[in-house]
């Protein structure tokens, strides 16, 4: 039983066909026990990847693929890294359902294009950065 409705899948397939530029990899870390939403998150990742030739699902086991998890800086699961031509440092921890599903799709578009819709003022401000910043946005599924 798919998580995405036929209607949503058709809509996304069309939007992906129109808007995706560079290939996007959804690099996911999962495990089969002691993880509440790993199974559903993996299913979302696979279903989304099925909607476009430009999107690939790469599923890793958090425990047995510990080297990969380290490479992507993943320290908890379920985790999805949205990776384009480069790794822009975008991670989803926990199930991307409700509004966060929209965030995931929007991130796929941005990463595929390699650009964001941020203002020039923001870009300019970010040029001042000389040290790393880690942003964590806490959300709940709605």
């Amino acid at each position, binding site marked *: 039983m798919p998580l995405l409705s036929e209607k949503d899948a058709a809509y996304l397939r069309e939007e992906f066909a129109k808007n995706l530029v560079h290939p996007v990899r959804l690099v996911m870390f999962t495990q089969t026990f002691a993880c509440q939403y790993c199974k559903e998150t993996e299913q979302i990742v696979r279903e989304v990847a099925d909607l476009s030739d430009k999107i690939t699902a790469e599923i890793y086991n958090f425990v047995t693929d510990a080297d990969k998890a380290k490479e992507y800086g993943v320290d908890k699961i379920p985790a999805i890294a949205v990776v384009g031509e480069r790794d822009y440092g975008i991670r989803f921890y*926990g199930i991307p359902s409700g509004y966060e599903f929209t965030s995931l799709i929007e991130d796929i578009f941005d990463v595929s294009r*390699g650009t964001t819709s941020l203002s020039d003022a923001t870009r300019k401000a970010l040029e001042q950065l000389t040290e790393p910043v880690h942003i964590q*946005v806490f*959300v709940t599924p709605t």
Partner: protein
Amino acid sequence: MESDLIRADMVEAIEFPHLANKYHVMGVPRTVFNETVHQEGAVPEPIFVARLLQAVGKMSAEEVEALFRKPPQSGS
């Protein structure tokens, strides 16, 4: 994406209660910048950027708070 120095996580608070606890997440969205600076709610882009600059010491908390009192400028 606009800076190689920034990495950004979405964290589902219910699945990671220890983190929600650690960062005092009472309402969502709550954004934590570098462990130290917090912002509650979905704020306008300039405020979000100001909090980020606050986290790296390029703006003071007072300067950021002042932005909340300023009427929004057109085109910003």
